[in-house]
């Protein structure tokens, strides 16, 4: 599922909740969002970025655009020495977009 799909599913969930529909219909929708493509791709990030955010910064308050720009810079910069240079080259631009939007959305939700 795409991120857009995940968000659409969450919107659908909210509408269903307002309409007082049975929970049975809800769970697949929220699970689809929480376990969707963007969530799966972003799952690796918190393996390093779940800490207080000093030497490895947190993204608290970062916009999707900022995250995307940083990932893009890591991906394109030659001669970089960090793990992020090596990792970012493994993701397509579409995936970087999905990860950036997902992380920014999660941060807002927090």
């Amino acid at each position, binding site marked *: 599922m795409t991120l857009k799909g995940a968000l659409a599913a969450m919107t659908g969930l909210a509408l269903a909740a307002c309409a007082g529909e049975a929970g049975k219909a809800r769970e697949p929708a929220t*699970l689809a969002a*929480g376990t969707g493509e963007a969530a799966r791709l972003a799952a690796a990030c918190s393996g390093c*970025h*779940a*800490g*207080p955010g000093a030497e490895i910064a*947190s993204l608290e308050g970062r916009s999707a655009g900022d995250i995307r720009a940083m990932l893009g810079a890591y991906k394109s910069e030659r001669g970089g020495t960090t793990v992020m240079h090596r*990792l970012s080259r493994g993701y397509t631009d579409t995936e970087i977009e999905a990860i*950036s939007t997902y*992380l920014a959305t999660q941060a807002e939700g927090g």
Partner: protein
Amino acid sequence: MTCGLTRRQFAAGLSATAAATAAPPAFAQAAPRIVVVGGGFGGATAARFAKQLMPRADVTLVERSLPYMACPFSNLVIAGLRDIGAQAFRLERIQARGVRLVADTARDIDPARRTVSLAGGGELSYDRLILSPGIDLRWGALEGYEAGAETAMPHAWKAGEQTRRLRRQLEDMEDGGLVVMSAPAAPYRCPPGPYERASLIAHYLRTQKPRSKLILLDAKNEFSKMALFQAAWAEHYPDHLEWRAARDDGRVSRVDPGSMKLETDFESFSADVANIIPPQKAAAIAGRAGVADATGWCPVDATRFESTLQPNIHVIGDAAIAAPMPKSAFSANLQGKLCAMQVVRLLSGLEAEATALANTCYSYVTPQGAVSIADVYRNDGGTFESVEGAGGVSPVEAPGDVRRAEAREAEAWFAAITTEAFG
């Protein structure tokens, strides 16, 4: 800094989802039962995330050894650079999130009845079982290294008493003593671990017992981050660390804990301190569940992390065959998250879906310098594949500030991964 969010943010996002998922009383479907065996970096993570993603599920985590002692950074303890207490992690915070913690040993698993029997006498039923049991040592696979040999010749490949024992033996050794390490053939837990350990022990010898020496005997000719380690050894420990490849008669064929001797095909070494890192396999419970194959490890479908040998049993972490993903804490933690996602999808009637995965692993080469390896993988088609053009190790030719920066990142990584796994 790039993609990331704090644990608090991530958990907050998940609990927002969780709140919306809470089922009304009318939703009388029986709660799905998820049992997780093993409370390390894989299992603790899987239990926590499964509960967050599916609050109505009955999630039970079985761990026999509490507090959990983390292996990453335990080489610093062995070198006298870190307190063992910094390796201990409790699981109360995971309990507080609604996971039922069972402090017991999983004695047996019946895949047909979908039950886990406990040494303490109880039995747990599951709809989906996640096994993250870690490793067992193959006692006797190296001649002379039977159970009991680890008293005289510690392996220290499971953190805790063995870590302290090896540290104590190094402290007690006279200056001028000989330390001998034996590294196994792949696959084993933490591929660069023996070389990080050798580096840090060599640092201890150079600074505290300068007439002493470490010989690292290896069953391999190549190893993880090899060029980086060898450059560091040449720079920092030329007189204190000697690595011997398998092709140079480095493979240990027999040990004798009584006389403290290690033998290769043509040579015998009398050690004052001997650290034997023996051949390994998935922990015994995997064999009893029928999910380990002839290699001793557990084949899985890469997308679902489900055993290819037994349905409804998922295997993650060091016990699983996930190569080219290494048997690392980062891999186990990510597999825990992704496996939790796939399990709750399957329990909800959704299909498992593929993704990209990653690994990051730092190794200290000096107390203030570290090197890293990182890689990206994909798990579509049922197998794990490295992504071409991505990943790799730290630059071999690099100024000292790159090594120092990676040492600081390593410390931040440990704080992050343990928060992520244990709450």
